[in-house]
């Protein structure tokens, strides 16, 4: 008579992530990207305001004008 065989337990794992909205920018996700089209502020991955607030071309134009 055949008997039921217990197989190894199956286990499914899924990532469970949540983030908090503290009103601060997500620096990691914004690294290298503009967060505001008007101000052109860019943050690097060290959460520091990037030194280049404007594209190099625009800086040259401002220098010429002055």
């Amino acid at each position, binding site marked *: 008579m055949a008997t039921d065989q*217990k197989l190894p337990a199956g286990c499914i*794992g*899924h990532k469970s992530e949540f983030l908090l909205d503290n009103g601060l920018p997500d620096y990691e996700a914004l690294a290298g990207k503009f967060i505001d089209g008007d101000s052109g502020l860019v943050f690097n991955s060290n959460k520091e305001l990037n030194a280049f607030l404007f594209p190099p071309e625009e800086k040259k134009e401002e220098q010429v004008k002055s």
Partner: protein
Amino acid sequence: MAATVTIAESNGAGETVTASITNTNMGSTDAVNLSATTYPITPNSRSYIKYQRFNVQNMGGSSIIDNLKVWRTGSLGTGGTHAHVTNARETSYGGALTYATPVNTAVTGVDQAMPTSEPSGANLGIGGSLSGQITSVGYSDYLGHQITTDASATAGSSSTMNYQYDETA
């Protein structure tokens, strides 16, 4: 051949069922496989509750799926008090949770602390009972779970939800 088991999730007022989820991220909207970055939780509020089920899509020649266990591996975030609440429990199981349009407020019966290690026994039922069995294509009871935060919370976290079952060939 082993049974085919996935985790299904239900969302929306009309209960849209996704047969197999790719993540169980918790956030500020009712959506399956959501992006935590896109839907962060405001401190002092809850995430939208998740309604999920073990989904036996194919018995694969096996006769029984039972002894369902769920738990989380990994800590919650920092800065304040976070909690991960659920209806899953090894004792005094409250019977099958009824699906309702997911909300980001407290849900009756979803008030147990999610285990952080494998429970000694089943903590999610089948047919309203921890000793229930799935013997053909079908679902377990709903697993309801949700994140709660307080005003002092400053960071979230990334952890792993484990969904385990026994299979008898």
